[in-house]
């Protein structure tokens, strides 16, 4: 890898934002420097408190490719503003040079070509090196895990989260909040929480029966750093029993609970907090709204919607930090806290270029040890991809097009539905598709690929319902996923229309005929939140399809017409 490292060193970049004054300077500061581990980690230690933020790793412990979205539409007040800009527009906004490492890390275009140049990103062993370096600067830095950590891979599924917990315990976070972890089921989740030496947080995790704060999750926890009292409040994903199968964790209720959040902040302040940090799995737009509604939060470390932002977004006196997903980034936030308030900050979104940052030997050994018993199954090559396979984006991506094709053919259906989740790494053209790759985009505890009948009318209800979860102009009504992916079904969507009126022109692609509201269609899908769903696991369906095809090439998908984006 020496040649790639040399190339990267010649080519590029690091970042450092200095308080408010550095805004807009991200890449210009960056472009003057070469890409080395030292440069990536370079940071002029500031103030008296350091926060390190990791979120939405989705069990990706080894370096991966991950293509950022080409379509990420904002509605209402969030139309056209960060994080709802993509590609060249994103690069112009932050002053990122075309073809630069930042282009590759943060935007989608030329992904395959840049991926070959700059290599995979992430890897918990590389992240361990970064965390160790930050702790060398500031030994009492607070490491916070925003959740969606114990979910998303073959190994995580087969060890019921154990391999990720083993690795994270070496990294030693100080607190964590949650989302997909709950889909391990209550019993296993509580078992794992027992194993971790750090605090499990969620001010919005309630006992479903009594509608009172749940006893296994603290609303907030305390740290004393640099003479300052710091309260870290947790906010779990608000819509878990709706977006995920509530029957797997029936003891719990969630929700935004804004007034409860204000009470929690007020309580922390009255107990002497000099700094209030919110470790959030709300999603970015929800965090932005909450920052404007709830007073007294200094820093929101934002997760769930997988946005990676090179600079914090300011709402009033609250800064919102978004750290991306799949282990691609780590955020370091240095703060000056004095006289009971935050008086300044310095922030850096550290891109984890896996060929530049040395793996931490102890972490690499832990990951390898947990992997060893499964290595043969993981590495088995099922087929090859002709083009880039990616998922992220508001509408169909090539991975889900492949999954929908698999459902249509293997399950003999007219229409296929694939959930609009945002996790799942990418593959470059020509890469082998291994069993591990298939599981990286399908792994979950409710994988049954159902086959059922739905009327045309009900299909529209489904599409409208999901569309409102994404395009409701009030972020508190959004759930933070992308649109359900469709196979065999085309439609037109006006994202600016009111609920129930966004979707029309539903078309059965196999005949080109309009969908008949009264007719029943054979529909195959997966990830149903309903208990008792039957069918083979989706990874088996996809594996059979890829094996039969050998080389898979996904055609350009033009079946969704987007209006008002």
């Amino acid at each position: 890898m020496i040649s790639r490292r040399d190339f990267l060193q010649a080519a590029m970049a690091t970042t450092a934002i200095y308080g408010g004054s550095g805004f807009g300077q991200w890449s210009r500061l960056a472009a003057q420097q070469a890409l080395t581990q030292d440069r990536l980690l370079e940071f002029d230690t500031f103030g008296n408190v350091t926060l390190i933020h990791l979120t939405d790793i989705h069990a990706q412990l080894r370096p991966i490719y991950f293509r950022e979205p080409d379509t990420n539409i904002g509605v209402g007040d969030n139309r056209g503003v960060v994080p709802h800009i993509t590609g060249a527009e994103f690069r112009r906004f932050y002053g990122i040079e075309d073809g630069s490492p930042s282009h590759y890390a943060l935007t989608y275009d030329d992904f395959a070509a840049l991926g070959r140049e700059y290599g995979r990103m992430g890897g918990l062993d590389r992240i361990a090196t970064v965390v160790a370096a930050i702790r060398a600067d500031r030994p009492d830095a607070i490491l916070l895990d925003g959740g969606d950590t114990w979910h998303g891979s073959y190994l995580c599924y087969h060890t019921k989260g154990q391999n990720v917990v083993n690795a994270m315990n070496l990294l030693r976070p100080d607190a964590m909040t949650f989302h997909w972890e709950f889909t391990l089921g209550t019993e296993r989740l509580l078992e794992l929480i027992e194993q971790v030496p750090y605090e499990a947080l969620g001010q919005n995790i309630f006992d479903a029966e009594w509608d009172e704060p749940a006893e296994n999750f603290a609303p907030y926890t305390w740290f004393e750093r640099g003479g300052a009292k710091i309260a870290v409040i947790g906010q779990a994903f608000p819509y878990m029993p709706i977006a995920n199968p509530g029957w797997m964790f029936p003891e719990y209720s969630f929700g935004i609970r804004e007034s409860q959040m204000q009470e929690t902040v007020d309580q922390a302040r009255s107990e002497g907090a000099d700094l209030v940090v919110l470790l959030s799995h709300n999603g970015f737009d929800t965090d932005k709204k909450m920052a404007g509604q709830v007073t007294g939060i200094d820093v929101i470390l934002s997760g769930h919607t997988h946005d990676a932002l090179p600079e914090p977004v300011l709402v009033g006196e609250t800064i919102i930090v978004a750290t991306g997903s799949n282990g691609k980034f780590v955020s370091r936030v240095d703060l000056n806290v004095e006289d009971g308030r935050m008086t300044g900050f310095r922030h850096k979104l550290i891109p984890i270029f896996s060929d530049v940052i040395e793996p931490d030997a102890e972490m690499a050994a832990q990951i390898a040890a947990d992997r060893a018993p499964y290595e043969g199954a993981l590495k088995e090559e099922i087929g090859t991809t002709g083009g880039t396979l990616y998922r992220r984006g508001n509408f169909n991506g090539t991975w889900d097009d492949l999954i929908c094709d698999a459902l249509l053919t293997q399950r003999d259906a007219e229409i296929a539905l694939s959930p609009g989740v945002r996790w799942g790494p990418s593959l470059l053209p020509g890469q082998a598709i291994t069993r591990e790759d298939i599981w990286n985009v399908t792994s979950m505890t409710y994988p049954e690929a159902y086959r059922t009948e739905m009327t045309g009318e009900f299909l529209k209800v489904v599409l409208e319902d999901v569309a409102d979860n994404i395009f409701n102009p009030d972020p508190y009504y959004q759930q933070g996923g992308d649109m359900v992916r469709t196979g065999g079904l085309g439609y037109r969507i006006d994202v600016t229309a009111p609920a129930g009126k966004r979707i029309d022109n539903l078309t059965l692609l196999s005949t080109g005929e309009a969908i008949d509201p009264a007719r029943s269609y054979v529909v195959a899908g997966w990830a149903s939140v309903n208990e008792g769903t039957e069918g083979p696991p989706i990874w088996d369906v996809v594996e059979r399809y890829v094996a039969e095809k050998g080389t898979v090439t996904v055609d350009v998908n033009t079946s969704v017409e987007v209006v008002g984006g």
Partner: protein
Amino acid sequence: MTLTRRHTLLAGMAAATAALLPLRAVASVDEAIAEFTGGADLGSEGITLTAPEIAENGNTVPIEVAAPGATAIMLLAAGNPNPDVGTFNFGPLAASQRASTRIRLAGTQDVIAIAKMADGSFARASQEVKVTIGGCGG
């Protein structure tokens, strides 16, 4: 497909259909409010309605109302076939004017609370509660 799932789907469809019939409901909501207030003006201060933005289960949605100093609070589910949920009355010895309950919502709709204050004035609060068929987040 099992019966369980089919029933769930049917329930989801029923909810969606109910949401399409707001006219009759709205009329009776207005009637109920007029009956409760005698046509008096409605303020917006002094009453707090706490409800989830999206219901985890439309069959049992936790709702809390509070209006310090109120003698009664009426609760309405504007989109239900029968919008009248109930009225909480607070006697002079009530330690606080706060009540919580769980209600069933036929579909996405506004939940409305009207408080009658001790001085005879009225205050209104409302919030949309979305009832969804569930899906796939993040």
